[in-house]
């Protein structure tokens, strides 16, 4: 039925757009909750759960009581559900979608016989063609020879029939749960001293790191939550320069954050989580002096990054550009590997670069000539030797405001006063002179 038709029939209809993502999440939550009824619970399609309750029913007093308990709890939560118990997954699926109930042992074919063929989890086309030839109920199929059915309607039909009747096994296979990296500790008495918090943290870290090691992962961010007696919560979050699971190296990074926490009337619960986790394969112990110095450098970058910010701990990387200020990138050291080296063909470049600073040149030199004397940063400088020009054209594919003045002619100018400067002029727009760098 289309929405317009539905509105015509029921003008007060309330509609909301479907949100499959939310529904999937809600179903996953329900799946976790259903773990109280069975060791194996799997999400089945978009709207179902399949639980293997073999040997469980007596804990609830019987199959009837189990089902009643399930319905009572779901109703309490405001959910409407339909459920069925049967000896096979296929039969339970069929019954749950056509009335629900319990199929006693040995009564599979008798109970299933009256259900329509669509209850066998067939695709709509097969179900429609079965109905067209007059096979509307499952009982009609059971009476027919299997070979002819498989030949005419495909092997899927026979397989579904076998699964429903228990001829072919169909175990419940839940998706593996994503590990949750979080540990907590509740204290009998509130604590307030830093050393006590650090001791508690060390115990939590040991557990968390063991968990990380089990899953071959390393933490990239860690968050410590301290719950105070008055129900307030203080959080300390640290970042790590590379994935890590070594408690003795992580613990010192928390010290500064824990120092700043206001303990109030005391802290009675600690919770440590790893919100960002990256894979970290097990490593051989004692990787040699290189590995040890790499570890120590990573520790340094972690502690620097946590105070200065990880975007202020940088590492230069080569970039493919002739524009001096774009010939290198500054990347966060925690997120990059060191460059192999900077290839440097062409004329020498200054060791220090800054934004262009105007140089007063008087008298202006002729075109293609360096200035004989100029004034820069309140210094009067005289040219001793000039090398150049090196013409650098702007990159037309990037609109850089600093390069809108067109091509630049760079000169390396050694002055009699000492400084060796990198000057440029812009012949396409007036020929003003600027200083942009200093040579060694």
């Amino acid at each position, binding site marked *: 039925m289309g929405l317009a038709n539905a509105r015509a029939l029921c003008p007060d209809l309330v509609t909301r757009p479907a949100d499959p993502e939310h529904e999937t999440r809600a179903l996953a939550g329900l799946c976790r909750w259903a773990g109280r009824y069975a060791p194996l619970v799997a999400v089945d399609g978009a709207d179902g759960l399949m639980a293997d309750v073999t040997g469980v029913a007596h804990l609830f007093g019987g199959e009837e009581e189990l089902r009643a308990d399930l319905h009572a709890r779901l109703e309490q939560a405001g959910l409407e559900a339909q459920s069925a118990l049967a000896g096979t997954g296929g039969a339970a699926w069929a019954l749950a979608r056509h009335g629900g109930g319990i199929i006693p042992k040995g009564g599979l074919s008798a109970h299933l016989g009256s259900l329509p063929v669509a209850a066998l989890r067939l695709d709509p086309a097969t179900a429609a063609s079965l109905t067209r030839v007059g096979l509307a109920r499952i009982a009609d199929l059971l009476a027919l020879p299997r070979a002819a059915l498989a030949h005419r309607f495909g092997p899927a039909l026979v397989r579904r029939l076998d699964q429903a009747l228990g001829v072919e096994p169909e175990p419940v296979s839940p998706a593996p749960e994503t590990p949750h990296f979080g540990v907590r500790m509740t204290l009998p008495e509130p604590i307030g001293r830093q050393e006590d918090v650090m001791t508690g943290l060390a115990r939590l870290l040991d557990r968390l790191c063991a968990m990380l090691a089990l899953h071959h992962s390393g933490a990239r961010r860690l968050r410590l939550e301290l719950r105070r007696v008055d129900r307030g919560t203080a959080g300390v979050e640290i970042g790590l320069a590379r994935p890590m699971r070594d408690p003795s190296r992580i613990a010192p990074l928390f010290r500064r954050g824990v120092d700043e926490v206001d303990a109030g009337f005391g802290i009675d619960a600690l919770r440590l989580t790893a919100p960002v986790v990256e894979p970290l394969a097990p490593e051989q112990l004692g990787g040699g002096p290189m590995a040890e110095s790499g570890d120590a450098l990573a520790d340094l970058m972690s502690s620097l990054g946590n105070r*200065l910010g990880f975007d*202020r701990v940088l*590492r230069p990387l080569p970039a493919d550009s002739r524009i001096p200020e774009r010939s*290198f990138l500054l990347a966060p050291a925690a997120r990059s590997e060191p460059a192999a*080296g*900077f290839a440097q063909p062409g004329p020498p470049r200054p060791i220090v670069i*800054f934004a262009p600073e105007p140089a007063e040149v008087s008298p202006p030199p002729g075109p293609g000539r360096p200035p004989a004397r100029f004034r820069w940063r309140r210094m009067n400088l005289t040219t001793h030797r000039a090398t150049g020009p090196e013409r650098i054209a702007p990159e037309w594919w990037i609109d850089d405001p600093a390069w809108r003045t067109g091509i630049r002619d760079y000169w390396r100018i*050694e002055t009699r006063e*000492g400084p060796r400067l990198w000057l440029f002029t812009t012949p396409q727009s007036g020929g003003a002179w600027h200083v942009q760098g*200093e040579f060694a």
Partner: protein
Amino acid sequence: MRFRASGPPMTLATFRISGSAGLTTSSNPFSLAPARMHEAEGSGRRAFAVFQALRHPGPLVWILRAHALHRPLPPALPGDVGARLHLLTPRSETDLLWAVEETLRAAPVGLVIAEPLEPLSLTAGRRLQLAAKSGDTTGLMLVKDSHGSPAAETRWTCAPAPLDGRASTGHIWRVTKNKKGTTGTWMVDWDGASAAFDLVSAAGERSEPAAPAR
């Protein structure tokens, strides 16, 4: 290069193997005493820092304030200095001093170069000296003129100087303070591309004038 070999428990031996650059040899007057904090001032101080970076193997850390006008240009740095470089840009002077201290305390760093904007106090200098000692790391503070700390091991005054008749670069490097040695002035011809350099002659004993004849 530094190696750390661990033998039986509780004995940790640290070996220090110097490269051909030489660390404390009498033939090289520009070697900085290891595990100490030094200072360089003058307009050629950054060139001096790059010169020292070449002679200190291992990771390099260059610390400047976030709003400093200049940045080192890694593709222009000689040898593998650009690849070994780490750049820290703290926002405040306190953060800068903290970062210097923390880096000096870390063992794997070869040389720490820092450019504070404010004068270094005796307390700050002393703390940096202690950090350098505990981390066995050498530090070089590039300070503005007369902004240095009395705690510095050596203080260098560096200025570029023109050289006549050579297509190279001259530097006048002067030790104005030395806790464990003598002061001196050197005229150096260093092209900024390799660790090799030439001592032209002691500036005070030159036979020809510094300025070319007109």
